């Protein structure tokens, strides 16, 4: 039996995963937890073979950071990231962290159980690209990498100077990029742009 740890802070998806695992003859649920920061503890104590790891878990603890830690300590454990957020950087960050597979909760055609089987069999299954979502008059794929970086920082509510300092660019460059994004999307203010971007989930700022 393949021992599975579920890391998911929302009750409904967590219960869905639990029921899928319980209904399967090949998988055994070790534990369901809400906080990715505590996943290592369970990996220490139990012979976990597979983790279904959400990215944004309880108290904003990051499933990606937890995955990176676990992969270093327990390279044999397979990790599948499960998320509904189309944040553009998650795919690359997951690959860099050594995550084995990636599954979008609402968009992926493949059922999770099938992905689990393939991952345990040694496959690394990643979607070709991040889901494209509309944002104003354009799509999320119409932004450049730098624009997405700045858009992510914009959701923090910080000033252009603070954003520029964090990204190592001048505040004027930040201002120009924001202006360009406003023109592309048709939004009337940076606040509207930030709120819509955050609501769509294409950029999510790691706060902690």
């Amino acid at each position, binding site marked *: 039996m393949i021992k599975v740890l579920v890391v998911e802070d929302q009750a409904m998806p967590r219960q869905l995963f639990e029921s899928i695992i319980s209904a399967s003859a090949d998988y055994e649920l070790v534990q369901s937890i809400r906080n990715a920061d505590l996943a290592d503890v369970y990996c220490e104590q139990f012979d976990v073979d597979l983790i279904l790891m959400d990215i944004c878990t309880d108290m904003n603890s990051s499933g990606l950071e937890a995955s990176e830690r676990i992969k270093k300590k327990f390279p044999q454990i397979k990790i599948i990231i499960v998320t*509904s957020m189309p944040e553009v950087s998650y795919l690359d960050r997951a690959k860099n962290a050594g995550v084995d597979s990636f599954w979008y909760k609402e968009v992926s055609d493949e059922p999770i159980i099938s992905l689990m089987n393939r991952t345990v069999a040694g496959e690394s299954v990643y979607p070709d690209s991040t889901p494209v979502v509309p944002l104003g008059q354009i799509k999320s794929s119409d932004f450049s990498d730098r624009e997405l970086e700045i858009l992510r920082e914009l*959701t923090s509510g910080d000033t252009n100077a603070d954003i520029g300092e964090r990204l190592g660019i001048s505040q004027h460059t930040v201002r120009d990029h924001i202006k360009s994004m406003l023109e592309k999307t048709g939004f009337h203010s940076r606040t509207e742009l930030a709120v819509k971007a955050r609501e769509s989930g294409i950029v999510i700022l790691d706060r*902690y």
Partner: protein
Amino acid sequence: MSGFFALPGYVQSALLICWCVLFVADIYCVIASFIHKATVSSKLICFSNFLFCSVGFFTFAFGYMSNIRAVVLLPFVMKICSAPWVTAFLLFGVSLIFTLICLRKIKIWRTEHITPMSIKEGTDKLPMGICFHDKNGVTRLINHRMEDICRLLIGETQFDAFVLWERLSRGDVCHGNKIILSGESLIYSLSDGSAVSFTRKKVDVDGADYYEIKAVNVTREYMLSLNLQKRNDETREFNRRLRQYGEKVDDIMREREILSAKINIHDELGETLLATRNYLEKGKTAVSRDKLLEMWKSNIALFRTGERKSLETKSSFSDLYEAAEVMGIELKVVGTVPEADKGTLRLIISGARECLTNAVHHANATRLTLEIKRDKAFYTVDYTNDGTPPDGEISEGGGLSYLRQRIEKEGGFMSVQSEPDFRLTLKLPCEGGNPNDKSIGG
């Protein structure tokens, strides 16, 4: 009597009046030539002309007076007045010409040279206030605009300039005026609605020290800065609301996902019910009996899962208790857990996770104690265990060094004590506290 005396009385009077005017004009020319520091030749011409005109005027004046009453005339006066009447007009004409020449020279000189008066006139026309004073504070030159400003600020226009500057620097001015910026440059908002920038500098004039005080109107710039400040305040307020939104948006998104999951479950159940009805009514269905059974099993399992006590009602810290229990360690917490301060709580849990792991692997401990204290700006969390003390100094491995990075990134501090017992201490800034307040933590 002949010559001048032979002229009609009214002609003599007219001529004398003209001589008188010329005489006054020549006095002016002489004075002007000395005041304006004209060249020697110019002064000589003016003075000579003045003498010539004076002699002529007084000569014919005495001659005229002799007509009115008996006056003893000097011989040369007699001679000149007795000369043909053309002589009088000729002499007058010559004097007139020289006077006109002198006046013209003076006019040209005045247009080509700056006089103290022209300096005063020029400064009075300046839009800014300007004042020059000497090293004793005595005002040497002040224009109207500066006088108006001083009247508004200190209520007077006669003052010691050093005292004026000192009062301006202190903000000791009349009610209704407000200092906006102090320092080398002073900016005031005046009671008349304008804004003025004062600067002072030392100037050297022919080796003597003087001070120049300028008062420049910066009303437009001040209004723009007020407008900018207002917009910055609005932007800060927008940013604050955006940050608040960022903190709540996860909950909003979570609710959306929950709703989406509920809809999925509802649809699955609905599909199962429809399939069952079809099977019962018609004996055949799009799905097989086994598949139908599987669908029901899945739905029932889901309901059974929902019967369990919802994890949502548990606090975040309770997960840590469970994790400790899993590791066979009793977790004891002394002090108040900051449940509302999510950032700090997360770091506390991260520290506990490291200590749990190390307590099990290295210390063989059965209890981990967290002591949480709070002051104005920091939470101090001490982690200790009841296991075997470390042998020697602890070197921070991957877990502890990663923890340190995160703590320090959030403006906190971390220290690891190896002797006599293990103690990990975290100092974490609390929300609303000032981590730069060195008098408190750090």
